[in-house]
């Protein structure tokens, strides 16, 4: 079986921009089934945009976004919702419903999409909460739990309908080392035990390289590198090297484009003459 046939997600020459600002300029990538794929790159590089394109929340200006061979961008609302039921997404800060308890948050998709009796809903929710270690926190409100716990609750909620694809938007941002390790292990474990396909958008090199099967680095709206963690780590590409070694200087600039500093500070006028 070829690699193409086993990929769950495929982006083909995708262009996307917010207004006049291009974010993705011809991105093509494949996410193999059953693997953990890490999507990395500098902030504002379009990683979250890729997740939103896969989820159908944004539509590409050109190019195709295929989910299990279906072009997500062409789907009408009902068909899109059918596809989304096969996806789970973990938002950066959990996006829990603040007026509901942990239990009700996790039960929400079940109650909306199924007619399961409440006894069964309870069992499923408690099982999912057990998987993320928060069965005991079921009666707490989102305001009463920590950021790391909120993210685990959101993970349980995203998994409650047993999706085929899990998307994680910066699951490690702002976590302490213990929660970070736990979150990373959970992502890997869930992927392997439930036979999921996972996409992890992250900045955290160590943890992400540790759990990923494939790493894709996005920079300046294009794919800068793609391969196993080891391949990416040993890449000779200056941009990838800068990213992997966290160097401030390199192809990715530290400074946002600005006029010359000596003109801005009045040391030199625009005509070149010193004032």
């Amino acid at each position, binding site marked *: 079986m070829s690699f193409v046939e086993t990929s769950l997600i495929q982006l083909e020459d995708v262009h996307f921009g917010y207004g006049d600002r291009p974010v993705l300029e011809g991105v093509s990538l494949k996410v193999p089934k059953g693997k953990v794929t890490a999507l990395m790159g500098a902030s504002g590089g379009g990683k979250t945009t890729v997740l939103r394109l896969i*989820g159908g*929340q944004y539509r590409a200006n050109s190019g195709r976004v295929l989910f299990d061979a279906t072009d997500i961008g062409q789907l009408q*609302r009902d068909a899109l*919702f*059918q596809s*989304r*039921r096969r*996806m*789970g*997404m973990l*938002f*950066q*800060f959990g*996006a*829990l*419903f*603040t007026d509901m308890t942990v239990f009700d948050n996790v039960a*929400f*998709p079940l109650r*909306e*999409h199924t007619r399961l009796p409440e006894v069964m809903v309870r069992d499923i929710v408690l099982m999912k909460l057990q998987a993320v270690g928060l069965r005991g926190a079921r009666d707490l409100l989102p305001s009463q739990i920590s950021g790391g716990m909120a993210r685990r609750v*959101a993970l349980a*909620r*995203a998994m409650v*309908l047993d999706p085929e694809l899990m998307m994680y938007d910066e699951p490690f941002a702002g976590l302490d080392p213990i929660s970070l390790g736990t979150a990373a292990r959970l992502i890997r474990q869930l992927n392997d035990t439930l036979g999921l396909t996972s996409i992890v958008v992250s900045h955290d090199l160590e943890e992400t390289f540790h759990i990923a099967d494939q790493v894709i680095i996005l920079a300046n709206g294009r794919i800068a590198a793609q391969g196993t963690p080891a391949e990416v780590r040993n890449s000779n590409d200056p941009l990838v090297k800068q990213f992997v070694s966290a160097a401030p200087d390199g192809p990715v600039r530290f400074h946002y484009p600005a006029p010359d500093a000596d003109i801005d500070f009045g040391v030199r006028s625009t005509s070149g003459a010193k004032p």
Partner: protein
Amino acid sequence: MMGVFARVGAAVRIWLADVGHATALFVRLMLLGPACIRRFGLVRDQMHFLGNYSLAIISVSGLFVGFVLALQGYNTLQRFGSASALGLLVALSLVRELGPVVSALLFAGRAGTSLTAEIGLMKAGEQLSAMEMMAIDPVARVLAPRFWAGVLVMPILGAIFSAVGILGGWLVGVVMIGVDAGSFWGQMQAGVDVWSDVGNGFIKTVVFGLTVSFIALRQGFEAQATPEGVARATTRTVVMASLTVLALDFVLTALMFKL
């Protein structure tokens, strides 16, 4: 010169697109009515929430408006020797105008702002986005129950406002000033028509309920997902809802009570 035309054209296009989006959302909310009846529990919870929010302010305001109406009305009526018509004056003023309008303004200020802020913050916290990704339509699940709850709760609040106002008028007119209780209630009973007065007042409250709930929800739904965005949206809810209610009141009054 062309630049001016281009700018005007662009502004008109943006405005038209905005009107189009608003209309589409309004139509969707109206069409979601039957779905809301099927899941009436969601609407009931919101009615309880919105009604409770506004009940105290509506009752207290109604009482004071009734007090003032009785004082001012008595002052004017007794000059013409028709102080006995005080009950009729108070009841008609409240049922036809002040009940629907003032309760709608208070509803916009109290419940409308909280709706806008709630939806705006849900948007800012990516809760609406998360719902979409769970294949649940936020318009159907979050907006529609709130919209219909607002529409249903507004006539009740208007009725409470008018009833409490009439009691206030009675307290000041009959108990304090000493207008004859028999003529106060008798003239009211004879002069207030169930269909043309109470019925038209009821229609006004329904229209205002639609207006205020829709404006509040749309402002929240379209708010920029930042603290300033939500603050601006909340302010816009009060300003737009109040002005729209007053303008609609004029139109409805002109249509209902032909001179």
